[in-house]
């Protein structure tokens, strides 16, 4: 399928490749992200998500291909691009030498924002992420969730048109997580574009209008989350759970064999096999009385199923 060319694309990558020395971290990726949507980039550890983001924020040079952000070229117009985007990095890099408020003011300076305006903007953003009470605190006195919220606020100091968030909710409690989600929704409702990476499939399903699943530097599949589930997995899934972890390999192996034989798609995860599609019942009926299975759970298919099915179950480094 030829990549869809959209006139008003927020991000447009054509045959984008990134090598670190001999190692290829992003391999010939083509991607069109239209303006005004929330786009999710999913993939196991080491898939190349952060590498993609660093190229998109025009701070890491591309090796091959073409990459445009907000209609500008990442090579020749990198400063202009960075002026118009907000980045929430994967790693906390707040300035521990400054207070909460001063972190925002110093950051504003890099965007050429005048002090008075920056002060106003900082108060507004601190209120938005509910950190007004902490404005004069040192960074080291903040909890993980507060730091994240502050980084989100910092990423919006320049009123960006595109917000890029690299695993914005990793390690957050449900309250902080919802707070970050709210910021993303508010931002998107202003008609602006969001690009985010996450390892939480529920998060991707809830927030993203479109997403792509990457693995080993390539995009495996791309589209609307609901449609992706329907297309690759179908509506239904069932989990067959082994009795004791490790010991009942045999039973699971047997089920796996059967699935392959009957061409039923499945994922195998530690103590269980997850079955997908219409033929589920055929397999279940066969193993219904298997005493090495503790549980058979029928449920709706989710994005996590798509993810596991596509990227396999082996751990990544």
């Amino acid at each position: 399928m030829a990549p869809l060319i959209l006139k008003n694309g927020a991000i447009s990558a054509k045959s984008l490749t990134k090598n670190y020395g001999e190692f290829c971290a992003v391999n010939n990726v083509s991607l069109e992200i239209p303006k005004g949507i929330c786009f999710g980039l999913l993939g196991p550890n080491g898939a190349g998500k952060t590498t993609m983001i660093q190229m998109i924020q025009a701070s890491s040079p591309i090796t091959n291909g073409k990459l445009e952000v907000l209609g500008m070229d990442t090579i020749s117009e990198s400063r202009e691009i960075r002026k118009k985007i907000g980045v929430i990095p994967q790693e906390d890099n707040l300035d521990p030498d400054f207070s909460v408020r001063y972190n925002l003011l110093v950051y504003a300076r890099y965007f050429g924002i005048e002090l008075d305006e920056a002060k106003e903007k900082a108060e507004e953003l601190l209120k938005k992420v509910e950190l007004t009470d902490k404005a004069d605190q040192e960074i080291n006195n903040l909890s993980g969730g507060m730091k994240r919220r502050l980084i989100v606020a910092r990423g919006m100091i320049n009123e960006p048109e595109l917000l890029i968030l690299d695993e914005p909710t990793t390690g957050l409690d449900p309250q902080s997580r919802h707070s970050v989600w709210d910021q993303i929704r508010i931002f998107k409702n202003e008609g602006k574009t969001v690009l985010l990476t996450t390892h939480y499939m529920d998060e991707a399903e809830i927030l993203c209008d479109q997403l792509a699943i990457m693995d080993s530097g390539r995009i495996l599949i791309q589209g609307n989350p609901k449609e992706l589930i329907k297309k690759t997995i179908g509506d239904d899934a069932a989990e067959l759970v082994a009795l004791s972890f490790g010991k009942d390999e045999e039973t699971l192996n047997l089920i796996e064999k059967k699935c392959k034989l009957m061409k039923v798609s499945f994922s195998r995860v530690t103590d269980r096999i997850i079955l997908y599609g219409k033929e589920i019942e055929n397999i279940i009926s066969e193993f219904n009385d298997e005493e090495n299975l503790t549980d058979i759970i029928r449920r709706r298919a989710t994005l996590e199923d798509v993810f596991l099915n596509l990227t396999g179950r082996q751990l990544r480094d």
Partner: protein
Amino acid sequence: MKEIQGISPQMVYAVWRRHADVWVRTWRTNLLPPLVEPILYLLGFGFGVGAYINEMGGVSYVEYIAPSILAISMMFGAFFEATYSAFVRMYYQKTWQAIAATPASASDVLVAELLWATTKSVTNATLMTTAILSVGYVVNQPLISMQGAVLMPIVAIPIGLMFAGMGLILTSYTSSIDWFNIPFFLFVNPMFILAGTFFPLSEFPPIAQNIAMCLPLTHAAIVTRTLAYGDGIENLIFSVTYITIMTVIMTYLGVKLCLRRIVT
């Protein structure tokens, strides 16, 4: 690539301001400690050891080491900042990485590091000059000339830049902060003694003299000494040329090698 690495004066200033802001916020802990050690050297060696030495290089011992101590404090100001402190910002605090997502470029960040390290060199020179003038006033023996005193912060600029560049070269290479101890103990500390700072080069055997003439601190000390006494300026050509060339090479290499490390 060009754009990612281009230099913008406004951005360099913004990054420099960040470092200056940190310094101002913690000035109480920043202002005095760098002065204590050199002043102890001045008093301890200058007056203590100096009591047993009639003269050195044609002047009293305390007058001999006062300009040396100025050169040393210029060196440490820049070198320390471009190594340990820069590494903390790069590696532990991820300050460089945070700035990389703003309109400032990696080159802006590195040039700002050089300028900030040089600023430290200039502040050290200013503070030490003031301290030396004060000590001179107290003992009623002007240790450096007034013209020399005024010029010290100015020559701290090229001298600071030279050592800042050398620092960045090390920072581009190091894998851990402890590693900096190696160049400090093997290079900086020996240079401290070898650079004609505490006794004149002419006392050295010829081979040691030749080695000393290759060391950057030797030339920094020649410059501060000449300015402090206010004579023999015309003999500075060699040292000034040395410092100029080294400054260009070291800052260029420092930025280039650090870029290679951080822009991947």
